[in-house]
């Protein structure tokens, strides 16, 4: 078997997939959940299609999720925001896929709106920027949270988890993070400058017995 040929075809495959994903016009109202292009059993396909045909969050809830996710992961000099990376669609999918998230998310969003109503007379998304951040400051820092907002803290912890993992497992997020794998290579150990940085080295026996690459 010619391994080089395979290395090449993998690379082409990866680029091809990327191009496909990018071809969705920006701002299009379709879901950013990727179509399936990996091995699926008939049961998995049926489950996927069932989930995609259902809608869990209301429009108001989705709007709140979008605003919250962008507060958690905003655009910065390195990359875009959570909503630009498709995080709200990911959250919609994952709560359908993992029903144990449904009540904490729906109830948490409701808790937030009720709290905002009490504090500034409007649901979260209709508050001003200052009102919104003042609210978030109460629930985003678990160790500093005052008694009475524990439920909000728990909800925000979940929202932070889902937003971050949705973002950093997206195409944009992985580029931002700098994960450099998932590509065919000849792995020849930790780079020298990194070994030096930590005052480490490979001993002679390790160098002698380890796999060597001809090219």
């Amino acid at each position, binding site marked *: *078997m010619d391994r080089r040929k*395979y290395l090449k075809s*993998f690379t082409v*495959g*990866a680029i091809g*997939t990327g191009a496909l994903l990018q071809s969705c016009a920006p701002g299009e109202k379709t879901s950013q959940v*990727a179509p*399936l*292009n*990996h091995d699926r*059993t008939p049961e*998995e396909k049926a*489950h996927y299609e069932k*989930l995609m045909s259902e809608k869990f969050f209301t429009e108001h809830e989705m709007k709140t999720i979008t605003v919250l996710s962008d*507060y*958690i992961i*905003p655009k*910065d000099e390195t990359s875009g925001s959570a909503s630009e990376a498709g995080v709200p669609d*990911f959250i919609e*999918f*994952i709560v359908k*896929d*993992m029903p144990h998230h449904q009540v904490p998310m729906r109830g948490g969003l409701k808790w937030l709106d009720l709290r905002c109503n009490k504090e500034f007379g409007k649901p979260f998304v209709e508050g001003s920027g200052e009102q919104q951040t003042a609210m978030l400051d109460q629930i*985003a*820092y678990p*160790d*500093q949270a005052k008694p009475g907002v524990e439920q909000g803290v728990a909800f925000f*912890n979940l929202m*932070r*988890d889902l937003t*971050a*993992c949705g973002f*950093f*497992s*997206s*195409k944009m*997020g*992985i580029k931002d*993070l*700098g*994960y*450099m*794998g*998932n590509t065919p*290579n*000849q*792995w020849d*150990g*930790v780079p020298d*400058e*990194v070994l030096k940085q*930590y005052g*480490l080295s*490979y001993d002679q026996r*390790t*160098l002698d*017995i*380890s*796999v*060597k690459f001809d090219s």
Partner: protein
Amino acid sequence: MMAQAGIKTVLLEAGPMYDPKKNVTQMKWPWESPRRGASTAHRNFGDFDAAYGGWSLEGEPYTHKDGTKFDWFRSRMLGGRTNHWGRISLRFGPKDFKRKSIDGMGDDWPIGYEDVAPYYDRVDKLIGVFGSKENLPNDPDSIFLPPPKPRLHELIIKDAATSIGIPVIPSRLSILTKALPDNKDRGACFYCAQCNRGCQVYGDFSSSSVLVNPAINSTHVDVIANAMVREVLTNDEGLATGVSYVDKTDMQEYTVQARVVILAASACESARLLMNSKSARHPNGISNSSNIVGKYLHDSTGAAMGGILPKLIGRKRYNEDGVGGMHVYTPWWLDNKNLDFKRGYHIEYWGGMGMPGYGFGFGMQGLNGKYPGRDGKMKPAGGYGALLKDDYRYFYGATFGMSGRGEAIAREDNYCEIDPKVVDKFGIPVLRFHYKWSEEEVKQARHMKQTFAEIIDKMGGVVTWGNDGAEKDYGLEAPGRIIHEVGTTRMGDDPKRSVVNRYNQAHECKNLFVVDGGPFVSQADKNPTWTILALSMRASEYIIEEMKKQNI
């Protein structure tokens, strides 16, 4: 082997055909999974994992007795559970076959290391395994391909552990760091760290890719997929005549006639088949007048701990994938004579800059308040916004973990049996489990945790999870979770105390063989796959010889 000997063989597979070249999940990105690779009821080890199924299958229940626990992992597909495993390919050592002689617990095998060694050699050459020559007394060397170099966290673990007398050596995995000579079907590893997804160049071992595919191509072997075997059929003399199965695609009943029947359905499934094959000559199931079928069930023990290495926070990026699994491990290094438990364990390590997926960054509020940030300042835990976003980058690749995999003692009182009241959707009576860990396993888990804590302390790491005490049995996993269950059709010279003889041949049905983990007398602190393969090869050779002699 049977195919090479020109014997017409039919392989009955309870699930669909599977070939990682066609059924691809390898080299996919997390965003290509709508759930970002999270596990599902259809794939318990994640959306990209090669193995279908898991600890529960729809319509195929199993039950428990006396409130005990046993989780049974099943993967119904060509290649079965070899599509999900760590590729850890360890030979049993001389002591592993003679544990009763050493510590008085369990039983000795009727065979010894010297009986299996030639077959280990042949499996090494046929399938390929990397590792290093260490000349350890109870961890015999294989015929090794060269190992990969350790990753950064593995170097740090190695320095720390060896400084306190715990050996760390190159791991021994059945992954082709070099292409095998004389094998045109398989390519060398290209270091994507995704063996669990199935390899498109067959650079690692799974039985479907490496053994079944070439056998099918030999024209002597036919595979019938989606064939759920119901029972082994026998004649008036009590000899096996074939099997009956239900075709899952049309739910009709079929039979296959054969001169020899070989079971390799996994330890518990093969035991289930024997117990469900009742006839006038075998009223208690086949080879079960001793009542031993299903008994002596034992899985590896497992306990784990993990943490963060502050010195790796804010680390430089590079490709750290390597092979699919650890590059170093710790074989059992102590003598149980000096300890308060009888059997050993090995340690597996993980960590580094892996591919993010579902679960990435979870629990940041437990981490970012504990360490100074990039600017050297402390800040409150949790948060949101640009500072939080940067924390995920900053802490990436600084976590690691380690887990022990130990030998449990085989006991008659840990068993599976046929549940008298419950059938699966095919109408086949299901298994009922009874399994309890003993003090031996709990004490071993305690020792694991102490060892992990010492290594982590020496590394300069901080434990973030897995610090379980006596109230949780030191984090000892429920039996079945490690998926190394063996012992249910154990081998022996005495038909009253064993199910098969030293050649995996049923005592009470000479043309029936069991070649999965069932015939293991004891499990060792090693993963069972390499020994299953060696014993299966040895049994195949015996079958061919016996057929030539017209004995079967």
